[in-house]
């Protein structure tokens, strides 16, 4: 054995503790232990009543909403199980959407639904604008360095409140200067990046004189969600393609009030020649094929009478033929690899010259 080995063993013997008996009295005095105060959970409805009556909430109170993990970054009104299945987008779909963007001024609109926010194309090419909303700046999947516009369309009482479900302060974030505009109802001097939503222009361009209810033309119609402002602003800014990720509008209020409005504006965008892209999993723009395929037969006799009218539509070419040639489906991988090696397999001429 060399001296190096012995020196190393000596060093180990000096540095590593040997097996020693520890008296039971060591207990937990040996390390620092932090324990949270016992918390009291107060339902949000009770908390609201207490506040209305001028009663102060106890300092150790957690105001909880159904399904919430108090203090967590996870929104309480999202069923916890829905966060499980977040998968990256299928490689074929990624290829397709990159090809579809070519030559088009593309906006990406980020919602916060866990069902599809994970599919966002953060690292893909061909995107001109990224727009986010509300207090989503603190959610883990957001890449704030990519954001070029932001929307906070609520009233001030709502955006200055401290939302107990998050551990950062949305109001403090709004009060900072950001390198992108924050669209709000009006310029708020306390929000240096705030820019008014061009509501009058939106109304005049898309709504005025087109829709009536009762005796009056509707000036403000179908402004049911933040996306109802984003989509017309995108059209006016010259967007040719708008992609939506994390936009599900599947919670109760969203489903009843916000989704129809968003779909209305998606339709308006389509009518103005703007492509709308949503991931396969997204629930908006997804209705039953009424009449042809829905309602479904209920009895065995009715099943026998079922006509296969939908069959004609299965053969209808959904995908642009040119696009389908460009996408490298698994069956075409060998050909693609061969082409790639044919083109790039030889050393570059400059390398040969050297």
């Amino acid at each position: 054995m060399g001296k190096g080995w012995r020196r190393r063993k000596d060093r180990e013997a000096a540095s590593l503790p040997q097996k020693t008996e520890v008296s039971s009295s060591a207990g937990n005095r040996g390390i620092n232990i932090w324990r949270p105060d016992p918390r009291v959970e107060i339902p949000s409805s009770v908390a609201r009543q207490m506040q209305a009556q001028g009663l102060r909430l106890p300092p150790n109170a957690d105001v909880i909403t159904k399904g919430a993990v108090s203090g967590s970054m996870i929104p309480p009104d999202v069923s916890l199980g829905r966060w499980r299945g977040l998968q990256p987008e299928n490689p074929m779909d990624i290829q397709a959407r990159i090809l579809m963007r070519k030559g088009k001024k593309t906006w990406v609109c980020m919602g916060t639904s866990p069902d599809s926010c994970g599919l966002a194309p953060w690292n893909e090419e061909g995107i001109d604008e990224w727009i986010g909303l509300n207090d989503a700046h603190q959610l883990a999947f957001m890449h704030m360095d990519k954001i070029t516009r932001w929307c906070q369309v609520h009233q001030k009482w709502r955006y200055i409140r401290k939302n107990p479900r998050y551990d950062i302060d949305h109001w403090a974030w709004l009060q900072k200067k950001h390198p992108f505009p924050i669209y709000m109802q009006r310029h708020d001097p306390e929000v240096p990046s705030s820019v008014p939503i061009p509501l009058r222009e939106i109304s005049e361009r898309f709504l005025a004189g087109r829709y009536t209810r009762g005796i009056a033309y509707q000036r403000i119609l179908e402004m049911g969600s933040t996306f109802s402002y984003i989509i017309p602003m995108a059209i006016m800014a010259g967007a040719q393609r708008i992609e939506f990720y994390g936009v599900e509008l599947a919670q109760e209020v969203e489903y009843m009030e916000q989704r129809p409005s968003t779909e209305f504006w998606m339709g308006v965008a389509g009518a103005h020649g703007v492509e709308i892209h949503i991931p396969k999993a997204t629930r908006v723009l997804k209705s039953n094929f009424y009449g042809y395929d829905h309602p479904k037969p209920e009895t065995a006799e009715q099943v026998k009478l079922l006509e296969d009218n939908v069959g004609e539509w299965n053969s209808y070419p959904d995908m642009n033929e040119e696009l389908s040639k460009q996408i490298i489906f698994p069956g075409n991988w060998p050909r693609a690899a061969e082409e790639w090696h044919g083109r790039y397999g030889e050393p570059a001429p400059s390398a040969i010259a050297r």
Partner: protein
Amino acid sequence: MYIFEKAFQIATTVVKNIEGRAADGGGSLPYLISMAIAAGPGDHCEIGTLFGASAISVAMAKKEWGFPGKVYCIDPYIPRDGVATNPKADIAPELLGGTPESLAANAVKFGVHDRIVLMHAKSQPFPPPLINNRFVSAYIDGDHLGSMPWWDFLELSRRTDHYIAFDNFEDSYPAVVAAGLRAITTGDWALFYKNTSFVALRKTNPSPDRFGQEREQV
């Protein structure tokens, strides 16, 4: 080579002398120690501690290399409901017997009690004293089921500068596997190395801008 050799020695010492048991028989400890040393000086955070084999190993390694930094352990010491009866949660019953006292006793025994801080709380919500902490490395070995591995990653990813590891990245724990794969697809973390059930991710986007909290004023 020296790092891994030394890590192996520390792991062996811990496994042989710890009161209680090391998870996975200590098979992941050398990799964890190597990762913590690669992360350099600074604090380490782990979720899921039990008897403290991993926390003590990292603390000993930091001491050995002369790195400043503490090891923050987050563990409520509450056995997960049904864990003993869940066939997929292949956990030895004796592993469930860890207590803060057993961790403290082990820390004293290995001479690293001054480097270990126990947050005797659940990881959700994240313990308030650690909300503004920065860690150089972190280790996720808490609740392996449902969304919890992913939530633990979310909490740690916003506070960790270099490496995050998952234990039990294996078929028996699909939620851990799913969380690890999703972590890689965020674009900010890359697979650094993987042992049989231990996977370490390295931060590739060190921007503090990630959550808009430290954005430079323009």
